[in-house]
């Protein structure tokens, strides 16, 4: 495995910008933000995919920490602010390893200092509660991308995993995208319906991102990106950050998950139920039907295809660690990125290709969003639009 050593060498110079990590939500759920109980300066492999030692081993140079909150909360805004507070506390507690980052220049500064640039991304339009003022508030607090939806539709945008609602973006949804452009917040199209992806690409004046999505042509799952959307990335300038979640990237795992969910429903449980009885039913199913295993090669297949369609300048990485129960072999936690890079090296990806994938493309996109924001702020005042006035 000489290529893993070569991969580590490359990552020292061009570390990974990872688009999505759910550590804050894991800390909220497991220990209610008791950061001593899950001290990420120590080894947390018993509880988490993520700690500082493994981020370092994985060659991570910048992380978008997700300030995700569940979309079924009666008021998602307070919880989102608590998630932001959690990320800030993590940064304050580990100043030698983490550095708060708001701009592309901060990313480069963190790389030069050998610290992990820490950015924030909000996962789901529900976090702005149909309010552009709240959106600007999140930007002022340091949030640098908003995923337009999570697994459920919002009033102004359709999710990939919900029934069609407004058919993409509503008029207010387009106003949200424009206001994000004006602030310099990246438009994240993971989790959204293909119709929403297309509408957002039409509406956005800045490059978009997919913080954790793979290719639908390689594995037919609604969470992945169709080729016609990938084809538009060169003109838009955005990046698709490939995700590792087995049930999105491996067809056998997609089918297995569907069968497992059906099995749960047949036994009268919700498919996401994790109570003891539900898990017993689930384990019995798993004994009868071994879970298909994805590997780094599975992810590399996606990247090879996405590179064919979107081009090398429009790829990135978004592992979704601590946001998913299962991970591919070799990519079991945040220390695994070198295995993916090694796999790509074995497939003939050049150093400059890999530098774009891991670091340069994602840094470029954030900088481009800042440039667009500067231009727009010179010509446009903050929008006062409301969902009532635009969507009626």
């Amino acid at each position: 495995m000489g290529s893993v050593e070569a991969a580590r060498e490359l990552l020292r110079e061009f570390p990974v910008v990872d688009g999505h990590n759910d550590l804050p939500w894991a800390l909220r759920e497991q220990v209610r933000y008791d950061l001593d109980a899950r001290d990420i300066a120590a080894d947390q492999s018993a509880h988490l995919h993520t700690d500082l030692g493994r981020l370092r081993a994985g060659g991570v140079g910048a992380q978008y920490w997700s300030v995700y909150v569940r979309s079924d909360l009666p008021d998602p805004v307070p919880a989102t602010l608590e998630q932001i507070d959690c990320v800030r506390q993590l940064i304050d507690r580990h100043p030698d390893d983490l550095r708060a980052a708001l701009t592309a220049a901060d990313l480069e500064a963190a790389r030069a200092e050998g610290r992990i640039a820490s950015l924030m991304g909000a996962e789901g339009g529900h976090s702005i509660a149909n309010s552009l003022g709240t959106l600007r508030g999140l930007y002022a607090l340091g949030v640098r991308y908003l995923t337009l939806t999570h697994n459920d539709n919002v009033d102004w945008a359709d999710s990939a995993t919900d029934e069609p609602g407004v058919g993409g973006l509503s008029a207010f949804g387009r106003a949200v995208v424009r206001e994000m452009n004006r602030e310099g917040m990246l438009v994240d199209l993971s989790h959204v319906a293909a119709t929403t992806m297309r509408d957002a690409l039409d509406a956005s004046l800045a490059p978009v991102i997919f913080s954790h999505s793979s290719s639908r042509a390689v594995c037919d799952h609604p969470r992945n990106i169709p080729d016609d959307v990938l084809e538009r990335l060169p003109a838009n300038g955005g990046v698709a950050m490939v995700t590792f979640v087995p049930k999105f990237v491996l067809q056998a795992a997609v089918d297995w998950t569907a069968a497992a969910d059906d099995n749960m429903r047949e036994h009268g449980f919700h498919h996401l139920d994790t109570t003891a009885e539900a898990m017993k039913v689930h384990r019995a199913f798993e004994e009868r039907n071994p879970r298909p295993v994805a590997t780094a090669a599975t992810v590399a297949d996606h990247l090879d295809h996405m590179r064919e369609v979107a081009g090398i300048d429009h790829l990135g990485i978004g592992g979704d660690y601590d946001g998913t129960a299962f991970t591919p072999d070799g990519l079991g936690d945040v220390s695994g990125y070198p295995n993916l890079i090694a796999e790509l090296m074995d497939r003939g990806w050049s150093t400059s290709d890999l530098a774009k994938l891991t670091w340069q493309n994602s840094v470029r996109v954030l900088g481009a969003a800042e440039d667009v924001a500067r231009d727009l702020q010179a010509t446009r005042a903050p929008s006062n639009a409301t969902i009532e006035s635009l969507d009626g």
Partner: protein
Amino acid sequence: MADLQDDLHTAAEVGPVDELPLAAPFPVEPPAPLSDDPDAEPLERAHALLAAHPVADGYSGLPWALRHLPWYDLELGESAVDTDVPRLRQGHVGALFCSLHLPEGLAADRAVAATLEQLDLVRKVIAAHPEGLRLARTAGQVIDARNCGRAAVLLGPATAAALDDSLGILRVLHSLGLRVLTLAGTSWASEAGLTRFGEEVVREMNRLGVLAELSGASEQTIRRALAASKTPVLCTRSAARALRPHPANLPDDLLAELGAAKGVCMVPLTAEQTGPSVRDVADHLDHVRAVAGTQCVGLSGTYDVGTAHPQDLADTSCYPHLVAELLRRGWTETDLALLTWGNVQRVLRTADVTARAAQQRREPSTAQIAELDG
């Protein structure tokens, strides 16, 4: 740097060569003599005094009033509200606490998001009027704004409901500039006083430098907050209950306790709380000063909240009338300087220093309301 030095002593392009007073390059202006001149009209003296010691106005409802205006220009003058830049200048207002309080329905329903929107609105207003307004987070920034000829805008008071019972949200709102929080209307600051979580909120506010505001709080809450807070507190809208029985006005015993704790009682210029004339307001100021002390009295315009104001105090340009009345009553320049500006500055600065010290000693609190209040 070298360029600047080379240019320093060049002559003006037009006109005679400047005389350079080398001995004293920055001549000290003689102090304004007017306020010492007993023959000058009180109103003139009031203007001169306020020019040196501007007003720190404890409560402005401007954000909510602007929220529903389709268009406004505070720099040019805006007749739809009581506050704009020209009138702030006429009234010698040097600092303005912008209320983030919410109407009752919103406070119960979606207080956090609505408070974020209020903060966004104030930041937008400040950004749109850079010649007149400047956001200030600390006592030092208030002075900077004044030295630049801007009215300093301080964010708060906000409603306690805006925390949604979470210290994390308190920290996040503080990072957006929140400086004052009203301790009333929640489970942890109610008629029964502060709960254990409520006291933890006060400690975290001290650690951050967010001032506790107690107008409208229950007597028990006021007493607990005075005991718990390491920095002086504010009552941003309280007059003397001995003169006018309004629930937010303070009885003499509480005024005395507030004075002992070096807090500031900021008397509102509203007909409802103080009375219909300038003299009524001055009566309240006299009373509060007598009971709480000269260092514990301040002013609160309470403009743009939809209440009636005493005659001659209709908007933010009217402070000189009030100061003139106080001059007639024999308030000294020192007393007036503390009333309009000095007391609030002292409270802000004390809170800044306390916060810096506390941050050295203490980590952010992770206390949960469920743990402490059960």
